[in-house]
């Protein structure tokens, strides 16, 4: 009769793949730094306005006052004499909100289209991929500008238009992952033990395809933030909602005389995108099985 393979071995710890990923993530200093950075920015944006209740649109001091000259506006004022600090604190909300919403829209459309195309292939794939290509060849900035001008320059419209121009890349990635995984034997095994298509797509393939998609979604947040900044800079975002992009946009003429007007919100965008990218890199390592054992 068969001998038990591991008769005398004590049972190793059963670690869930997600727990394992977190363990790897935790061991990367850069990723932890990114997480810390982003956490600080998120917390400040969420709770900052409560503690520092200055209206960012209110004129508080002489225009273009440099930082550290008056206690009323510690980080100086912009060209209209508005408090820079208040703008930086409140502006984070809009920027982050647009970034996260746009990334969510990207990932949802991207996964839906990519999953169906990559799983069913054939004519489904042909149709969905032609649509994807249509969106991919549109110049993203121009298309977003058209959308924003057609509707109103409000935050939801900005987030939507960024999402709509960025999903094709995610869809292609999702499709490639689905095509790869659907050919693996555990998917065939799933079919032969009676799993229906829906289960195979959403419960079997998707969780295994998620790792690179999460990484790309994280990076999409960074791209979306930059995109929002670009639109605001061009004056195509909501002028009544303070955002870092809006601050840069309205201060752009004064950059040579008053460096802080553009540099401070620029630095915030830089730090946010840096934090997000470091987290994305960390996740990439965490989900890479080849790096786990080290």
């Amino acid at each position, binding site marked *: *009769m*068969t*001998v*038990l*393979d*591991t008769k005398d071995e004590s*049972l*190793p710890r*059963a*670690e*869930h*793949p997600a727990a394992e990923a977190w363990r790897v993530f935790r061991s990367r200093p850069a990723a932890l730094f990114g997480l810390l950075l982003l956490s600080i920015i998120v917390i400040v944006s969420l709770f900052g306005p409560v503690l520092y209740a200055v209206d960012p649109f209110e004129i508080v001091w002489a225009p273009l006052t440099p930082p550290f000259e008056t206690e009323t506006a510690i980080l100086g004022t912009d060209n209209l004499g508005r408090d820079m600090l208040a703008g930086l604190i409140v502006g984070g909300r809009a920027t982050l909100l647009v970034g996260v919403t746009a990334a969510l829209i990207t990932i949802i459309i991207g996964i839906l289209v990519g999953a169906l195309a990559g799983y069913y292939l054939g004519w489904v794939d042909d149709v969905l991929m032609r649509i994807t290509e249509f969106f991919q060849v549109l110049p993203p900035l121009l298309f977003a500008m058209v959308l924003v001008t057609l509707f109103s320059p409000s935050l939801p419209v900005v987030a939507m238009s960024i999402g709509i121009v960025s999903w094709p890349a995610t869809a292609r990635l999702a499709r490639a992952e689905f095509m790869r995984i659907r050919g*693996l*034997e*555990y998917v*065939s*095994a*799933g*079919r*032969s*033990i*009676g*799993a*229906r298509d829906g*289960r195979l797509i959403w419960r*079997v393939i998707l*969780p*295994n395809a998620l790792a690179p998609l999460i990484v790309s979604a994280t990076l999409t947040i960074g791209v979306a933030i930059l995109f929002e900044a670009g639109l605001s800079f061009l004056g195509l975002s909501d002028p009544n909602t303070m955002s870092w992009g809006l601050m840069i946009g309205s201060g752009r003429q004064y950059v040579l005389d008053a460096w802080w007007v553009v540099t401070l919100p620029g630095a915030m965008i830089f730090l946010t995108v840096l934090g997000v990218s470091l987290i994305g890199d960390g996740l990439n390592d965490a989900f890479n*099985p080849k790096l786990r054992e080290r």
Partner: protein
Amino acid sequence: MSDTANGANYLEVQDLKVHFGKKGATVHAVDGVSFTVSKGTTFGIVGESGSGKTTTALAVMRLTHITDGHVSLEGRNIGALDGEELREARRAFQIIFQDPYSSLNPRQRAADIIREPLDLMEIGQPAERDGMVSDLIKQVGLRPEQGALFPHQFSGGQRQRIGLARALATKPSLIVCDEPVSALDVAIQAQILNLMANLQEELDLTYLFISHDLGVVQHICDEIAVMYLGQIVEQADRRTLFTAPEHPYTKTLLSAVPTLHAARGDRSKRQRLSGDPPSPINLPKGCRFASRCPLVEKQCHETPPPLRAVSGGHFVACHLAG
């Protein structure tokens, strides 16, 4: 059908064809394969890469499309089923794969992998299923507490046992084995082959066993078909095939296997194939082996040889055999 009743024609494959690709560049992966398997026996299909053996297995499992032909299990045409009917019918036929690494979902614990078919096929009451899982785990020689582990925590042989337990969960009568031991270390192969033989006896299983390893096939199969470029070129029971092979391809294949006690230097006498097999897209009109055959004659290039009986139960597709 009286034959079906006593199990002689338990699995019947008739003129099976699986073609891939578009018009003009069709790959004839499986091109007119017929065989029958008796209940409780092991039917082996051997061949080299491109012979169509794995595609045949996947077609029987309904995991690839069937271009033409019939596949029937206990008299029921499973080749024609689809949708929910096919899903239900899958209880009766299961598969184990070659690669123990890609055949298990890395995100599921072993016990969940084995439990999944019970849930999906609604076998037993939900409350009973934990017990059934633990019985299955024991049946394949693992310990129930190992069910809490993830696939990457098992060795190759253990993973193959989990794959077997998953296949056995629906109490199938046919198990298609696609190179089940080729990816395992030699010492582990024996463990799995013995386990499979024991399970066959205990559960009256029928195996359709796909392999390129003639030693393994000789050990485990009762009846063997040799495939070349999508067709069966020779089929016989185990002893006949290995002691009296008729097809020149079978003979070359047998002589190419390194045996343990052949004296060195014997090799000059061995037959060697020259060249590569023809492309499965542009097939020759005569015998598919003709371009590499040492015995080839004029007629071989003109008419394809049919698979015909040379003696009871021994079939050969060669103009010159018998």
